[in-house]
């Protein structure tokens, strides 16, 4: 079964995204904090896609980094992800606006939760996974 990694600290909201993905037939690994997310990624799991939040509390792992009160945590996780799982697609799913400069700098897709409610996201995830398989 294809695994989707979902990293976001908003538990209540993300449960709908989780259920939609599960309805789609994916197994969802949901992690809510930076430390456990980092640990999991470093284990180089077999996943089909990573969905990260941009803003998260830095946790112990990044407490000495300048994360601008968590605004940069997602980007730090992204770098770790690309290093450990270079062939796995990864996107950001965020509540915030104005991230186009990050999308350009990191060459990553940023989906906004308001524009991608749970089932729309699940459809998009399916499309990305398929596209990646073909490539």
């Amino acid at each position, binding site marked *: 079964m294809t695994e989707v990694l979902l990293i976001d600290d908003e538990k209540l909201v993300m449960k709908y995204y989780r259920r939609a993905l599960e309805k789609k037939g994916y197994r969802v690994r949901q992690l809510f904090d930076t430390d456990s997310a980092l640990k999991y990624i470093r284990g180089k799991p077999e996943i089909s896609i990573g969905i990260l939040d941009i803003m998260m509390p830095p946790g112990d792992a990044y407490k000495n980094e300048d994360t601008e009160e968590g605004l940069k945590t997602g980007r730090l996780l992204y770098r770790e992800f690309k290093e450990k799982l270079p062939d796995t697609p990864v996107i950001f799913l965020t*509540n915030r606006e104005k991230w186009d400069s990050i999308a350009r700098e990191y060459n990553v897709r940023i989906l906004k939760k*308001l524009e991608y409610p749970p089932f729309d996201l699940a459809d998009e995830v399916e499309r990305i996974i398929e596209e990646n398989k073909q490539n």
Partner: protein
Amino acid sequence: MNMKVAFQTISWGMWINKIEEVLNIIHKAGYQGVEFSQRPDALGVVDFAQLFELLQERNLVLVSIVGGTLKERIEFCDEPKVEYLYVEHWDLVNIPFAVERGFTVAFHPRMAAPRGHLVDILKLSEMYPDLKFIIDTAHMTILGDEPVRVIQTLAEEDKLIAVHLKDWTPDFGRSKYRFARGFTTLGGGYVNLDGVVKELKARHFKGWIVAELDNARVSPTASVYQNAEWLTHYRLMRASALTESFSEGEQTEKIEPYLGKLPCEAEARFREILMYAIKDSPETFYDCVAKAFSQVLNCKLITVSTYHSSEFAEFITLRACYPQHLPILPNVSNFRNTLSGIAIHRQAIYTHFDLNEAAPGEKYGYPDRKFSDPNLQKVLSLNSMITLPIFNSGNQNAVRLLVNLFPEQAGGIYSEEEWYRLGRAVTQAADSMIDGHCMSAFIKVNRLAGQCDRALEFLAGLVNLIKKVIRCEGVAIFCVNERGDRLELPDRLTTGTIWRKEHEKFYRKGEGITGSVWERSEIIISNPREDLEDHVGKSTEIVANQSQNVNIWVPFLDPKGNVIAVIRCRNKIMPPHIIAPSMFSSDDASLIDAIAQAAGPHIHILQGDEHRAKSLDKLMHEIRTPLVAIRGVADFLRRDDELRGSWKYDYLGDIWSWGELMQRLMLNANWFSYTLDSLKVQAKRTYLRAGIIAPAVKQVRMLLEEKDFPASNIRYSQFEQVPALYVDPNQFQQVMFNLLSNSIKHCYNDPYSFQVEINGEQSRGEYIIQFRDWGPGISHKMRERVFEERFRTKEAIRRNITGQGLGLWVVRQIVEAHDGRVEITQFRHPLEFSIYLPKYLSHMPPKSAY
């Protein structure tokens, strides 16, 4: 209550011509004591006994003598019949000598001199337990130390012997050459004099309160009485019975030197050269000063140097010489060992040294001092040296420049008054020169501010402006962050700065020189010959000549006087024809200070706007979360086949529609807090009817239902003439939503009058979307105004129609971001908006698309 109040004689300038008259005026005005700022030999008395007698006759106490060196004053006073003697920072080693002789010594912390801050005063106090302090209210304010707090701290420890009452405005900035011109009469500035007076009264202060101001715009006599009036009003002094009898006839003016034997033609040429020089750059100006002096005296050599003293070092730096290209030392640090040091410390108009004597400084009490450049003396056969300190305008005890003249012959020396006149002309010319450049810098900053919408854009412009105005290789501007606990380089500000530690790209308060400038709010100039040679900074700008390493730091202040940023410049670039070393000077400090003074309020406003935008963004973020949750629930229930049941459908549809409406409203507000990123178009190939108009109509469902307007009254054509276009569907849905919601809001509450028609067609080169509305329409006068941000018609306001006036402004922003345009093509029956989009959107995205 009457306190001990004295007047300082600096108002009379470098000499007191008629001391009896001066003392009469001070006595009649009601003062109890006198502080003499002049040198002992410039008081017009034979000896101390005569001076003391004159004071006693008028019941006046000799509070202090300021001018000259400490030793000169001790020698003059002979016995400690003076309340205290000033001691300068270079004379501190002589404190034990003075104390042994029974004198009380007092230190006057001041701007542009070492050890000005309270923290420095406290250290001095520990090192010299006998030392007392004179606090000047204006100097402490400029240094950023609140005078009331300083008074409290020192009075608690019984270290405060006198308070100089003085006022100040920041109109001339805080740089060494200009700040003193901001001194004003009491009550005319920003100093917390009310607080100081209250504190002194509360403490029943037993020390001296001294009124002084050396650049008063009135005569010295008027200055005496104006201060007396202020002091009487604040009940620090008893009203003088004779105040009202003060008349113009009783004035004793500042001395106006007679012409003397200075050749008229020579002086005329001197003044002419200076007059033309004031338009030059500072570097070229000093060349002209040297040349000007060559007109009045035949010299083997003339040098012009700037004098600089800081926490780190004291040095004089060559700025110009005449003739040029002679082998002269560019810098003399620790000049206290030299003859020039005597001249600076004496504060005399001029000092003459016979270089053929074994100890040229002996007649001034410094037999061990030598000429700083013995090689030069030998090479040029220099016989004598006349050192002319050029004093600071508005602060005549502060030396600004040093002119050294080495005459061809021993004779032909001018009188003190004549040297004074020449020196004063240089001061005035130097002031005019630097004022002109500062004013020009001011104008450039304001022009730049007018061209910038964003703080980052403005800061980038300032970096380039400073590089050009100051002529240096590297410039960085560190800004205090939002939390107020770090100095950081703004993201994306290009300065060529590299940091030694990747994870510490900031300065804390007091950290390094940059952090110290923030903490102490002072200008610092450094050069490689100082004690900072071992200093390795936390960051540096990459410049062509890495070894040169000369820097200047200047703080930016907001209108309240708080530091909001620190500028750092690296590596001065000197014009090729200038012989002076490549170092930053106090002229550079004045220019950067003027730029900072002009820029500070603009940065404050721009950052304020951006902070508000960020606050709004945070608020929006909070609203988004429940909205996302609502949409999540609704989406889930809507599409989950297991849960769907017809009885749930309407509720779910409602949740969905409210959610959509909320999203559209928030996106309008988001545009209001927009940055450039928000304008970026994420273009997709979109059929307008299905992908934009139909969804937008659904999104206004709740607005329609609220007014009982039938959705069927919104008609849209098949759009056969308009193919799929590369547009941002989300943004264009916003366009349609805004147009529709305006129509609904402004239509009369009559369901039958609500009619909307949306068509698409093409014409030469363009696709046109026509939005027609049979509501009340718009006056033709409003054709452009309605698209302005936050504009609302009177009608809308009168009818209490909801909205922020953002809808049409957002429409225009989005359409223009798609390389299109929107205008009103008919004003009523129907009101028609036409959106024109370029044809190339059918096969490629707009130019600004991401």
